């Protein structure tokens, strides 16, 4: 048969013709490149349309009850609320940085609620909504962003791994964990209560991450070892300033074809679709048919982080356009129309959100700074004579400052240690 060919649309090529100035004023078309490159391609799975119309999907059945919708709505509202609060806290200097999830509430709550207690999650650094679903209090996320520590919850007890900042690393770690679930006989056991005892793993990464070697190797290993892992890619169209088309010519879920496992594109702003598809994928893995890849097609409504300035690389038009696909609004509309919730419910959720925000803020400003010994603790699990000695010497050095009015531990004061010859002075 004739090979599928890839022929560039004439003129699309900006190279090598692109001379100086070519990139001067980004055109709207350049700017919505990310969308263009990926919104083509058939088979986006959607249950609840942006207009709030519910259409069951033959392959991904879901029992849509008012309770379910109210719970998901509440989850999304509360998560968005503390996300916005964190953003504000950073602006006020209370956090060093914040990584907003704004716009990705459905992609995360849908996936998070699809998980069973025995399942394991490996997040990137933006998965505050997944953390919420794993029962982690939002305040436990703050240590990383206030700089008091590198993590803040119990990743073993919550089955929610520490955030991973090095793009792609966690995909291999998750695959290995899933291999272990299989080696433990926790996959496709056919046991009586299998759905509550058999396990699966889900790993979260972005559109940009798909270019990293580690993500590829994770998919290769998962396929080779039939690992029960769901590769959940939140395609929010941007990797900082780079639109997704810089990473791929074709929709990202198609990567799965090259490895021999299913790849599904879901409307990432439709919490019901994300829930239904992720549940299907986790159960496929649980029963031994893993891995599975999911591309949640969504949008990063805010800056990459509070340090980022999106006005330099994307148009307000684009963000405006996406507001019409808001993940929370469509649920609110459906709940209202269908009579699944009344105003009291919405007001109640709002009040709960405000309380959460207040508690979140109060906690932040009161967070203690660890002592110098944190620097040396938990580098190793077993004793380490060299490090113990470095710690002892440093604490002794600090002790030399005591009583020195101007000084504080580790401060860059002018009077220095009396623990040494300098003490003579």
């Amino acid at each position, binding site marked *: 048969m004739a090979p599928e060919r890839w022929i560039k649309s004439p003129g699309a090529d*900006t190279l090598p013709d692109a001379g*100086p100035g070519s990139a001067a004023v980004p055109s709207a078309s350049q700017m919505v490149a990310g969308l263009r490159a990926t919104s083509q391609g058939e088979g986006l799975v959607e249950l609840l349309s942006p207009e709030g119309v519910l259409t069951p999907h033959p392959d991904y059945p879901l029992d849509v009850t008012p309770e379910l919708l109210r719970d998901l709505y509440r989850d999304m509202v509360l998560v968005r609320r503390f996300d916005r609060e964190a953003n504000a806290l950073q602006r006020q200097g209370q956090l060093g940085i914040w990584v907003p999830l704004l716009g990705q509430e459905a992609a995360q709550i849908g996936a998070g609620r699809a998980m069973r207690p025995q399942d394991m999650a490996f997040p990137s650094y933006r998965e505050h909504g997944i953390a919420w679903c794993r029962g982690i209090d939002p305040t436990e996320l703050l240590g990383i962003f206030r700089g008091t520590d590198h993590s803040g919850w119990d990743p073993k007890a919550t089955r929610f791994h520490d955030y991973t900042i090095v793009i792609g690393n966690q995909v291999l770690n998750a695959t290995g964990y899933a291999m272990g679930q299989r080696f433990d006989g926790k996959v496709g056991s056919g046991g009586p209560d299998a759905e509550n005892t058999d396990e699966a793993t889900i790993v979260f990464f972005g559109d940009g991450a798909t*270019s990293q070697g580690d993500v590829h190797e994770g998919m290769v290993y998962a396929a080779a070892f039939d690992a029960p892992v769901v590769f959940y890619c939140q395609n929010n169209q941007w990797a900082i300033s780079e639109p997704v088309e810089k990473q791929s010519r074709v929709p990202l879920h198609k990567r799965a074809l090259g490895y021999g496992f299913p790849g599904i594109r879901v409307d990432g702003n439709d919490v019901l679709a994300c829930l239904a598809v992720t549940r299907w994928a986790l159960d496929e893995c649980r029963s031994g048919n893993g891995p599975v890849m999911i591309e949640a097609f969504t949008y990063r409504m805010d800056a990459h982080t509070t340090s980022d300035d999106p006005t330099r690389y994307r148009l307000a038009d684009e963000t405006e356009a996406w507001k019409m696909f808001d993940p929370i609004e469509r649920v609110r509309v459906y709940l209202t129309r269908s009579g699944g919730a009344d105003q009291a419910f919405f007001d109640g959720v709002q009040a709960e959100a405000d309380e959460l925000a207040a508690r979140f803020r109060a906690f932040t400003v009161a967070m203690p700074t660890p002592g110098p010994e944190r620097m040396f603790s938990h580098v190793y699990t077993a004793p380490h004579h060299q490090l113990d000695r470095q710690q002892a010497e440093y604490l002794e050095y600090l002790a030399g400052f005591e009583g020195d009015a101007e000084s504080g531990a580790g401060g*860059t004061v*002018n009077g220095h240690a009396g623990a040494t010859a300098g003490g003579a002075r």
Partner: protein
Amino acid sequence: MTATSAAPATSGAQQATSVTMAKALNMGLRAAMEADPKVLVMGEDVGKLGGVFRITDGLQKDFGEHRVLDTPLAESGIIGTGVGLALRGYRPVCEIQFDGFVFPGFDQIISQVAKVTYRSQGVWSMPMVIRIPFGGGIGAVEHHAESPESFFCHIAGLRVVSCSTAADAYWMIQEAIASPDPVVFFEPKRRYWEKGALDTATAPQTTFSAAVRREGTDCTVASYGPSMPVLAKAADAAAAEGRSLEIIDLRSLSPLDLEPVLASVRKTGHLVVVSEAPRESSITSEVAARVTEEAFYSLAAPVLRVAGFDTPYPPSRIEEEYLPDLDKVLDAVDRSLAY
């Protein structure tokens, strides 16, 4: 191999004619791209965004998308395709977004960048520059405040340098780009916004050499990059206490330009080496070992090190505990002189 530069690490900070190190790097890149059409800038977000630190600000606008490349998010890819571009006759300047993210590209650096010339018996040269914003002190999250320079000093086939002033930043990046050998270029991100005098008229003979920043007689203190301002402060504080420190900016970390250091040690008999990098098997180990080998009889005390602890970089709220500071340097000087 030795250049004595008058420019003290932080002088001119108040001058009107001065520029930030970030601006000086941007000017240096621009000058190199104007001088040679084969010079390319590539990396993550270096285009419209101008890099997360804006070092490449405006370059894509002025030189076009085929000279300033926003790459896919993969560092082995940045380095590995950069190698191919260099073989093709280009001079790629690869930006690694943060120190902690160079490691996915480590294999290409050690197996190809550093070895292509040796393997081909000189048929290929490898005129690549790998720019790495490094070091701590900016209150960042994990992986954004590391000092990996020692790894690269241990790799034969690479040259490793670090700038500490705006003027050096401007000239060193150009010297790095002009080099037929690969240069790993460490930029002290914490100092990007500090200003320094810049005279673009007169090019120094070389900047890949140690520079005596301040002459002194009692103790030599050597460092590079982010710690140089700390050394300047230490020299002031010591002077106030009647102690005269000689301050040396190593600038070239590999190969080390030891002559100025040895000459200084023969004079002072004391040496303190300062670096944010963890201590074990590091650049500070090398300086201590080499100086002791070559000036054994001149040393009145062992070479003392003020370095990072042998721990991962700590949470930013306590990073001041980890970083070399005025007190730690003066304490080391005291200990050295007390021998």
